[in-house]
């Protein structure tokens, strides 16, 4: 059997923590091999070892049968190993071409031959069907295109073994579809791929084999054709997982959120939200489905008071909250799970306990006459940590030290605990493993059942279909259709999101 990569009994220890405990992973030539595991199972660590970013504490790596010592990414590059990182490794202020050639720049008389480089990038992108604009700035292009740049970076260096670390977590369904096509094409060209993903559906769709790890240990390596999502999920979590969250039918009450004729401009002055109408009732979850960049971000920012509304109105329980400052909106009863938990959700250098009162610190009992009551704060933190199963050594640990899933659980705990009438959840499960996703979905439905209004914004069609009671499709800043998840299909939703009007779609709210 010909393996291009053999990672044998790899061990990696951080301090006292064993992140990789004798894991073995073997990659065949021309296959797409999935690496599956919970958040924090050690997948990224294992791949970083392969890419030379970490040095293993034990085990050996063979490339095409040869034992190798990958001391840094340069060595990995020379061995033909390329990696698309979980957190993009792109310089925002550089152009696409500059990012791709960085470190192996074509030169002419000592200076960068940028024309030639752009030409090479263009050729490469055409050859693999990775559409990018070589002269565009990274900051200005979509996440999907950024990812294609990451792939081009590896191809530019002639990699024939590609590691994709959770490439789909940040992509829209369309982009995921494109990426899958690209991967298939790459394999056809003779490349071999290791794919990390939490989405079992993707594994079933493109992968040949899968290696499952749990808490740093290798659990199993299976042929995808001989397994199914349920088996994979239970292998990885160590228990049965429900994919379809059980829920009772919704019992919508009075309207909680009424958005009327809303116009919001983006940073460039273009109307990103363009005469949008939407109503969310008590006791229902409205999911907003749409391709990234159709005004979702601006809509949420307008609802939470972070950007100015141009025209139109936002009513909460009949009260006008248009253009109120964020604090007033929060106090009026809006909870918000932000899309970017590191940037907006947490103060990473604060203890997790203090993060639990980020919006309420000034209120009784956390604060009295301007003085904080730390006992009350940490009592509350302990309660939420227990209630929402936030895995942390203690409530004094800095938020930075928690894993993404646990950070997210902390945020959800905080927002739910404030008992808001309207809960806005933006991409609440991005990058989380199936176990964590299940937990979070349950919580959202619980809120609904308690008579709250929930607005869910997500690029994951699965999630929207699964959790929502109604789905509002957003396109170019407008709600173009409202559909019942039980009566629609992914295909239909996909078409709506792409702007093609459903024949009988009555846009009512």
């Amino acid at each position, binding site marked *: 059997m010909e393996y291009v990569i053999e990672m044998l009994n790899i061990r990696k220890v951080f301090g006292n923590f064993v992140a990789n405990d004798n894991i073995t992973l073997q990659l065949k030539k021309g296959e797409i091999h999935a690496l599956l595991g919970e958040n924090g199972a050690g997948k990224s660590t294992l791949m970083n070892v392969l890419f030379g970013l970490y040095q293993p504490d034990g085990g050996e790596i063979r490339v095409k049968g040869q034992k190798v010592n990958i001391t840094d990414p340069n060595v990995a590059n020379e061995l033909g190993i390329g990696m698309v990182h979980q957190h993009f490794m792109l310089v925002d202020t550089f152009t696409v071409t500059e990012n791709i050639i960085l470190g192996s720049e074509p030169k002419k008389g000592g200076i960068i031959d940028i024309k030639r480089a752009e030409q090479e990038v263009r050729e490469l992108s055409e050859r693999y069907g990775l559409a990018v604009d070589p002269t565009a700035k990274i900051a200005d292009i979509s996440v999907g295109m950024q990812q294609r740049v990451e792939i081009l970076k590896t191809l530019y260096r002639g990699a024939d073994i590609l590691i994709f670390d959770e490439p789909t977590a940040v992509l829209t369904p369309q982009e995921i579809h494109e990426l899958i096509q690209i991967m298939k094409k790459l394999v056809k060209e003779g490349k071999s791929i290791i794919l990390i993903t939490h989405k079992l559906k993707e594994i079933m769709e493109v992968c040949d084999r899968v290696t499952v790890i749990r808490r740093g240990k290798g659990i199993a390596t299976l042929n995808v054709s001989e397994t199914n999502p349920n088996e994979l999920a239970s292998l990885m979590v160590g228990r049965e997982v429900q994919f379809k969250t059980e829920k009772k039918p919704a019992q919508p009450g009075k309207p909680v959120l009424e958005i009327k004729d809303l116009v919001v401009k983006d940073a460039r002055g273009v109307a990103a939200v363009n005469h949008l109408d939407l109503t969310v009732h008590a006791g229902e979850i409205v999911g907003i489905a749409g391709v990234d960049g159709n005004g979702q971000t601006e809509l949420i920012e307008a609802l939470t008071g972070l950007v100015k509304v141009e025209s139109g109105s936002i009513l909460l329980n009949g009260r006008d909250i248009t253009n109120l400052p964020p604090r007033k*909106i929060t106090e009026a009863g809006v909870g918000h799970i932000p899309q970017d938990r590191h940037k907006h959700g947490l103060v990473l250098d604060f203890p997790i306990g203090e993060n639990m009162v980020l919006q309420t610190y*000034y209120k009784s009992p956390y604060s009295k006459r*301007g003085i904080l009551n730390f006992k009350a704060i940490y009592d509350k933190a302990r309660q939420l940590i227990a209630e929402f199963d936030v895995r942390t050594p203690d409530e004094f640990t800095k938020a930075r030290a928690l894993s993404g899933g646990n950070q997210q659980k902390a945020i959800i705990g905080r927002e739910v605990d404030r008992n808001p009438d309207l809960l806005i959840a933006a991409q609440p499960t991005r990058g989380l493993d199936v176990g964590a996703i299940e937990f979070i979905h349950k919580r959202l439905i619980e809120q609904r059942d308690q008579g709250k209004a929930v607005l869910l914004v997500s690029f994951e069609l699965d999630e929207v279909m699964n959790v929502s009671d109604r789905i509002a499709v957003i396109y170019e800043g407008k709600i173009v259709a409202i559909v019942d998840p039980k009566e629609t299909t992914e295909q239909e939703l996909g078409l709506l999101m792409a702007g093609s009007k459903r024949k009988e779609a009555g846009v009512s709210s």
Partner: protein
Amino acid sequence: MKLSELKKFFVSTSSAFVVPVLAVLLGMIVGAVVMIASGYNPLAGYSSLLYGAFGDPYYIGETIRQTTPYILAGLAVAFAFRTGLFNIGVEGQLIVGWLAAVWVGVSFELPKVIHLPMAILAAALAGAIWALIPGILKAYLRVHEVIVTIMMNYIALHVTNAIIRSVLSDEGFKSKPVHESASLRSEFLESITYHSSVHYGIIFAIIGAVVMWFLLEKTTKGFELRAVGFNQHASQYAGMNVKANIILSMIISGAFAGIAGAMEGLGTFGNISVKAGFTGVGFDGIAVALIGGNNAFGILLSALLFGALKVGALEMPSSAGVPTELVDIIIALIIFFVASSYVIRLLLSRLKKGAE
């Protein structure tokens, strides 16, 4: 205690005390090497330094007097740092604070209980206003506070000189002395320290440190200020007014700096004279804050260290023949070692591994 236990104790308390203390020791050792290399006697050098700082009540008094403005300048720098701002303008804020304190001190005659607080308050206000400008520019126009505060230092210097000349004196070079009712000077303190110029300002400085600690760590406002310092985006999401907090932070920082000026104006000098250049206290405050780990208690200690080194240094040329500049070298080395605490910790943890 067994040796290994001793080592363990050493290691467990390392982050709090051992690292700074080691840094000071290392700085002293390298300083000794410099002295030997340049032909001085390090023992004589250090004993005169020590004597000049703590040798008798007079020197202790002078050391405390010098420590006083350092504490407040350090607090000013640290307060801004803790909220994500770099206030290089403490020097200028200190100068305008000094001016305002003296201005009030010479212009009124009031009972001490009113006059003294009023003069100090005026200094705080002046410093605050001086810091307000960079604060506003930072908050609303996102102009980098470092440039604006550097410029404000020069403006403070020249404007203060002009006011001393034209308002506080008749085209002269110094103001009248502040009235007794606004003075921090104390016959009692002077008498127990052989006429040193130590004054009651140290009390205000210590109160200042307590205030900073309390404000940042215990109050609701402090929570906001710290949050904004760490993550403006999340703070804004959480409903905090980021701009107002940036401005408030600069104001408080400036107020500390202004009070540092009041210490000079109402205590050490008792007046203000035209300044040929910066006092240096504001810039030293950066180092004080950083050595003190930007925390109120740490700043008390590092200001004392600074005060002692500066005052003690004056004794070195006459009794040991060592130039005072050696102290600057030692200070630099100490800062260097404090900054490199990562390496010191690393070495300590190696030690720990050895102990286990």
